[in-house]
């Protein structure tokens, strides 16, 4: 007479394995939703930062170029050389502050808060006294880097 067999250890393990894989997949999808949200938020902040720095460069260029028209004698001021990696704004003086640290630039907001992002400005002079600007931003948490590129010309209505 054949003996009635119960469930073997191997069979039990297979069942547990299937259940565990199912659970892991569910949890992974669920956490991926949240992760993608945090990523989208961080990416939005990084993009805002790059655009902000680009506007800083435009304003900085305008300020330098206009130095020639401030006094009684109008003089043409050469295009700024942009020999810096970081540009910030000092709220107490209302002036731009430039620096070139060896590492990425820190992000300090006008409220005094710091953001866990980094950026660096890379400038290449072009033949027509314009500059090719690259602003490289990064979020170390995501190992993500992104670049905003543009060209700054010595254009100003007063010297047209």
């Amino acid at each position: 007479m054949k003996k009635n067999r119960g469930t073997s250890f191997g069979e039990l393990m297979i069942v547990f394995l299937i259940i565990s894989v199912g659970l892991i997949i569910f949890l992974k999808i669920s956490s991926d939703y949240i992760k993608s949200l945090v990523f989208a938020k961080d990416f939005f902040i990084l993009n805002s930062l790059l655009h902000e720095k680009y506007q800083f460069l435009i304003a900085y260029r305008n300020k330098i170029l206009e130095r020639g028209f401030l006094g009684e004698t109008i003089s043409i001021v050469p295009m700024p050389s942009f020999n810096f990696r970081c540009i910030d704004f000092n709220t107490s003086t209302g002036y731009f502050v430039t620096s070139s640290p060896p590492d990425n630039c820190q992000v300090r907001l006008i409220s005094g808060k710091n953001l866990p992002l980094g950026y660096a400005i890379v400038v290449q002079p072009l033949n027509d006294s314009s500059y090719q600007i690259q602003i490289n931003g990064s979020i170390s948490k995501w190992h993500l880097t992104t670049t905003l590129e543009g060209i700054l010309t010595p254009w100003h209505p007063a010297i047209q």
Partner: protein
Amino acid sequence: MASGNSIKNKKGFTILEMSIVILLFMFAVLTVSTIYLSLINASVLANDYYQALENVRLGTEKIWRILKYGWSFRVISDGSGIIFQKKDCTTTTIVFSDNRLYYREGNMETTTVFDPELVKVNNLIIATDTPQTSETYAYFQYAPKIIILYYDLEIKSKKGATSTLIFEQAVAPLNSTYSTNLCE
């Protein structure tokens, strides 16, 4: 007789075995449905946040575009707002109050920049640069070259969950380089 014995020897399931199986099955269903619901909740939450983030993007883009082509900027003393003239010289105000960011153009009705259902404004600070000279002969001599807006926002989901969004926006107004203010 032999076949009769064989039928007798075949065992069915006991009530205890049946109960354990049903209990295990119910436990499995409960676990899977809980995880499934949390997955749906996560998806709804993410969708709400994306909508709120898109609303922030639209609002900040609108502000950027209007400030870029504006004239005669004047920041309210505590930095909570800015009064300026739009491209068509309409006096326009952007001001932070009661956890909202208000936008008013001429005599038109005041609107909010961000949807209050999706975005709560915790703080807004606006700053501009200092002119390089005290002369006011040409517009570019006293016009701000940069306007910086600091946003401290909370994006909201319909289920009440919130997430902080802190960032800055800068605008270098195009008209700040001109000699004449066309709105004066």
